[in-house]
Structures are given as structure tokens and as C-alpha cells.
């Protein structure tokens, strides 16, 4: 076919990039990713997009502009829903319309609606539509979809994700190894992780000075570990997340993200909500955070949120209330937008990490002077 399809390195690139890559490759199309986020892309996006939109949407505009002169099609699907009975976000649903009416001189948009709210077959339906748009027959598209879906099974999700995004995408080659090393420790699936054997009392950070050799499974761990809660497209975008994950590594702090928690664990916690959450990210974030808190895996939470994100405003608040009420684990909300200054961000981050460290050292210490 030889058409060039541009995929903006933004929003659900961070979830579906391997899938899309495989799918379009099987259809014989060439794929062009936009450049990793930089100041120019952000500025272009902020300038062209409506002021009130959240940062990721503005950034998406920037990525589309980055692609527009070098491809035949740009992938801007209308992602209404990617899971049963759940939506993503109103702004995702209206994204193709927003892009078409705010940016001028674009190539053709692949703006097929993906709606899997009622049935998972919605995914295949959307794929067939996209195939038809590119001139591929139903059979060929279905085959391509199968192929891509096979590789994108739930259990391979995180590994795939790690490989594509962390290595080729946002963390560059030199840092990739370092990131790989951290992630291989963090991202292990729970079934591969040795069963917890230690007593309940030990299931928490080891006090300073105590040896850890007799705890082989990393539960009684030496280093601080924080849970980073946020949309994949803010957490993994090195530019707009102010390189949070890297900074944590530099501070010698391990991290866990929503993607490192098993779907089953997420659902177990999410189902305890009085009313099921109807946002995909909402369920994942809530379930993952509560799982991290309950299993004692983390010493603190960092909620990375973009200014004006409607879903975060509800979900992060709910997480904060429940984590505080039930587990008493510290939590900080870091809000980012196009005006955020890195120095202020760093100061807050460092203060939070210091606090976690002190909390660990002094926990159980009762001052003799009262």
C-alpha cells in the first residue's frame, strides 16, 4: 500500500503504540511517529488549542502539527470507550472534531470511532472501518487485527509497553538500560514474584540499620518506594512529567505505576466502590493505588495530574480520602500545566521524599524528652 500513517506520540500512544504499529504494518502501511515531546511541540499545541483544554490535549495538537507535512494520514481515533461499561473521557470522545476544527491544513484523519462499551467486538469493527479507509479488504484487516491483538494480550502488555515506549520512545538509549534495570524489578508480574512469607509486622520498610538478607523477596526493602498515580500519557512523557520517573531513580527511590499492577488486583479493589467507576482510567488508578497501599508495597503516593483534568479531580480525591482513611500513607498531588516551572516541581518532590525518609527513620521512635 505504501501509505504513510502518522501516529502522534501522545495520549493513547502510551497504551496502544505496539498494537497500532503491528496492525498498520500488517496492512502494509508505513508508520511515522511524531518526535518526542519538546518545547516546540508543546508551544505549538498551546498556541493552537482552546485555552481551557487540559495539557495532554494541547500537547496532542502539537504532535499532530509536528506530523502534518510528512504523512498521508494521521491517526486521531474517536476513542469513546475501550472497555465494557466504561468511557475514557469526554475530551477523548470529541478529539477528532476538536482537531479538525482547530488545526488547519491537515492531511486526512483516521477518525474512526472505537466504542467497546457494549461489546469488545467494537474494536474489530473500528479496525475494519480503518482498513476500508486504507483500501484493505475485510479479511486482510481482520487478519491484521488478530495478529496485532495476539501480541497485545493482557499479560504481555507491560513488557511490550516497556520495550516500545521506554526504550525507543521517551527514555533514550543511554538511559534505557538504567530504566530497564529499575523496571525489571518493579514491573514483575505478581505471579512471578515470590510469595510473601514474612510476618505481617515485617511487611513494611526495614528500619535503618537492620539487615535484609533474610528477606529475599524484596518486601522488607531497603529503598523507599513510591506509587506514581497518573494517566500513562503524563507519567511516561518525559517532557511534561518533568522527567519524574528519572528523578525518582536519581534520588534512589523505586517506583511503581498503575501499569505494574495486575488487572485482577485492580478490579478486586475497584469493585469495592459503592458505585462502579465509569471511566477506564478511574477504575485503574483507584484499584492500583488501593492495591499498592494494602499490600504495603509503597511508602508514599505521588499523584501526577494535569491541570483541569476532570477525571483526576474526582479520582485523585477519592484515592486520597480512602488511602488516608484506611492506610495513613502520605500522598502528594503534583499538578502540571504549560506554565509549570521545574524548580518548584523539584522542590516539592524533594520535600516529599525527605518527609518519607524521615517518617521511616523516626517511625516507632518515641522521644525521651516527651
Amino acid at each position, binding site marked *: 500500500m505504501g501509505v504513510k500513517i502518522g501516529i502522534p506520540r501522545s495520549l493513547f500512544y502510551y497504551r496502544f503504540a505496539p498494537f497500532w504499529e503491528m496492525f498498520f504494518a500488517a496492512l502494509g502501511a508505513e508508520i511515522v511517529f511524531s518526535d518526542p515531546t519538546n518545547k516546540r511541540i508543546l508551544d505549538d499545541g498551546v498556541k493552537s*488549542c*482552546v485555552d*481551557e*483544554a487540559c495539557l495532554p490535549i494541547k500537547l496532542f495538537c502539537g504532535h499532530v502539527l509536528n506530523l502534518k507535512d510528512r504523512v498521508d494520514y494521521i491517526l486521531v481515533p*474517536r476513542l*469513546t470507550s475501550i472497555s465494557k*461499561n*466504561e*468511557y*475514557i*473521557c*469526554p*475530551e477523548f*470522545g*470529541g478529539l*477528532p*472534531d*476538536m482537531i479538525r*476544527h*482547530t488545526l488547519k491544513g491537515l492531511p486526512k484523519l483516521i477518525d474512526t*470511532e472505537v466504542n467497546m462499551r457494549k461489546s469488545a467486538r467494537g474494536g474489530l469493527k473500528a479496525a475494519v472501518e480503518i482498513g476500508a479507509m486504507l483500501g484493505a479488504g475485510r479479511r486482510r484487516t481482520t487478519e491484521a487485527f488478530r495478529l496485532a491483538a495476539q501480541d497485545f494480550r493482557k499479560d504481555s502488555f507491560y513488557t511490550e509497553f516497556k520495550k516500545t515506549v521506554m526504550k525507543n520512545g521517551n527514555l533514550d538509549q543511554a538511559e534505557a538500560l538504567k530504566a530497564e534495570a529499575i523496571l525489571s524489578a518493579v514491573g514483575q508480574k505478581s505471579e512471578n514474584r515470590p510469595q510473601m512469607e514474612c510476618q505481617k509486622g515485617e511487611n513494611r520498610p526495614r528500619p535503618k540499620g537492620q539487615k535484609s538478607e533474610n528477606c529475599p523477596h524484596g518486601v522488607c526493602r531497603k529503598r523507599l518506594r513510591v506509587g506514581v498515580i497518573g494517566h500513562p500519557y503524563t507519567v511516561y512523557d518525559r517532557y511534561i512529567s518533568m522527567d519524574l520517573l528519572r528523578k525518582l531513580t536519581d534520588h534512589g527511590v523505586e517506583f511503581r505505576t498503575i501499569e505494574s499492577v495486575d488487572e485482577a488486583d485492580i478490579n478486586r479493589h475497584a469493585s469495592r*466502590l*459503592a*458505585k462502579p*467507576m*465509569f*471511566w477506564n482510567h478511574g477504575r485503574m488508578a483507584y484499584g492500583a493505588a488501593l492495591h499498592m497501599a494494602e499490600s504495603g508495597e509503597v511508602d508514599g503516593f505521588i499523584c501526577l*495530574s494535569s*491541570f*483541569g*483534568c*476532570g*477525571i*483526576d*479531580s*474526582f479520582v*485523585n*480525591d*477519592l484515592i486520597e*480520602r480512602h488511602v488516608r*482513611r484506611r492506610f495513613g500513607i502520605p500522598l502528594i498531588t503534583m*499538578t502540571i500545566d504549560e506554565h509549570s516551572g521545574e524548580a518548584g516541581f523539584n522542590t516539592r518532590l524533594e520535600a516529599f521524599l525527605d518527609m518519607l525518609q524521615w517518617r521511616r527513620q523516626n517511625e516507632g521512635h518515641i522521644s525521651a524528652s516527651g
Partner: protein
Amino acid sequence: MKVTFPHLGNTYICVKSILDDIGIDYIIPPFNNKRALELGTRYSPEMVCLPLKINIGNYIQAYEMGADTIIMAGGCGPCRFGYYSQLHREILKDAGFEMEVITLEGTDIKDLVSKIRRVVPGGSELMRLPSILLRAVEIAKRADGIEMLAFRTRARECERGTTDRIYNGFREKALVTKGTRNILKLLDETEARLKAVRLDPNADPLRVGIVGEIYTGIEHFASFDIQHRLGRLGVEADRKVTVSNWIIEHMIKKPLRLPRDMAFAKAAKPWLGAMIGGHARETVGNTAIYAMSGYDGVIQIFPFSCMPEIVAESLLPSVERDLGIPVLTLIIDEMTGEAGYMTRVEAFIDMLEKRRENREKQRENVTSKTGESGTYKKGRLVSWN
């Protein structure tokens, strides 16, 4: 058990009359006011949308008056409103106000019936419920009718303030009138009085359509009373999104799978191709409908960070350009200052007046071929000479 519910325009009239008929003890929170907003802002998370904050204010004020149970509508997304009641419960719990939140939503009929049973005391009242609800729908419809009638008369009345007097009097009286039947009588009375207001036969007011998010559109307090102020400026406002419309379309027709009035969806199609939650499609569609039915302008109102309306906002410039209708977007939160806001509205209205004058001049030019002229394309002024 003392029941309370949040304010939304004239919804209280409808809800209270139902509660009267069934015989449930209830407390209507004071009409939305500054203190409600302050209380709401104090206890709610910073980034949630304005209606949630005002709701919390309503509940706390009702709590102070002795209420202990909240009745609230629900939904299933993707707009945040669907999750309001859950967050309300959490906020009130953490803030130390012990109140039960009962969400009435049509997603699960069994669940809905059990919830109603919890509120409704005996069996006989349950039997009467259908007829009471029918009358309540009628009340919602009529109350909205009265509001629309007031929009019309306010812009045309000879003696300024007559409409406001009747309308505000009606809202006060509705607070003390008991039961659906008496409320219906009150509605008849008010309608007759509004129809009797002496109108200026030569009045030709500007016509402005109000679109946007439902709460800020309907609730006078949240929009700084914009619709009444427009009326006082001699502008006739109109709004298609109403409570009765919401009840009929979403709470009756949708669960029963009856065909719904989708004119707005059809009109929105060229700009917004799908349902994305909230009232985004209504906003875009109704703007197009107003443009095509000869309105002078459209004002979009929504609370800060409202996701569906942000999408609509980004599409409205295209509608504006394609159909030639001026649109003003007003975004409201607890920090919005009234004066700055009214300046913008007045400037917009001045612009609309000027625009109409120019158009009339232009029409004269076309017919008489004298005086100032410009370049025209299909009867529209493209540039001045």
C-alpha cells in the same frame, strides 16, 4: 428522616410537590447564595466543577436546618455528574456531616425501587406514586413554560420590573404551597398574570440563545442571573436545555426506549459527530439551530473545567464562521467577578445591536442603491468600501 435535595433553577417546585403528596418530611435548602458557595468551596476538592461545590453548600445549609437524607439524581458518564453523589457522600463524611445520600438513577430498576421504598413510608403511597409523578412531570413542564414566558415579557414589558416582581413572587409562593394540585393552581395563576403584563407593541428586542452546561444555564445564581439581566437590557433570551426536557428525554424516554427528540444532534452533525457526554452536542446543535432560525447571537455558559463543554467551545468558532452567528463564551467558577462578567455581556450586546443596525442599513442600500455601500456576497456584507 428529613429529606433534602440540591437546587437547580425551579426544580425544587417539582420535587417538593411530590414529597408533599407522598407525605415525606423535607427541607428545602435556602436558595443558592454566597454562603452556600463558600461552604461548598471550603469542603470540595479544588479542581471539581462548580455545580458540585454549590450542591455541597446546599446540603450543609440544609443539614444546619435539620436534614439528614439527600436525594440526588445520577448517571453513567462520561460526564462527571454521574459520579457526583459518590463524591458528595465522601466529602460530607470527611467533613463530619452525617447525611445519607440516596441516588435515583435509571440504570437498575430493582435497585431504584428499593431505594424509593426506603424513602416512601407505606404501601398505599407507593400505589399513588405513578399519578403523582405524572402530575410532577406536568409541573416541571409548566414551570419551564413560565420561565420562557418571563423571558419574553421581560424584554418587552412597558413598565420595567413587572415581570421580575411576578416571577420572584411565584418562586417565593411556591415554597409555601403544598402538593402537586395546589402548585398546578399556582402555575395557572402565574401564567395568567404574566400574560396580562402590558407589552410594548413596537418592541423588537434582540434575540439571544443561551447554550452550554445545564446547571450554569438553568441556575440563576451560577450564571449571575444572566437571563434576567439580558431581559432587563431589553434582550429576549431563550434556552432549549430545561429541567422538564431533561426529565422527559433522559428519565422517561431513554429507559423506555421511546424515540427522542434528536433535532440538536442532527444540527450538530457537521461539527460534532458523536455523543461525548454532558450537553456538548446540545450546545453545538442548538447554536446551529439558533443561527438558522435568525437569532442575533448565542451565549455559551459553562463551569470552569467542564470537559464536554470544552470540546464544544473549541468547535463553536467553526459554527460561528460557517453560519455567521456571533458567540460569546462565559466560563464560571467560584472566583468569577460579577462586574467583569457583566462588562463582557454588555459589550457583546452592544456589538449585536451595532451588527443589526449595519445589516438594516445594508438592506436599505441594496434596495435604494444610495448612500454608504459595501461589497456583498449572497446578500452578506463582505467588506466596507
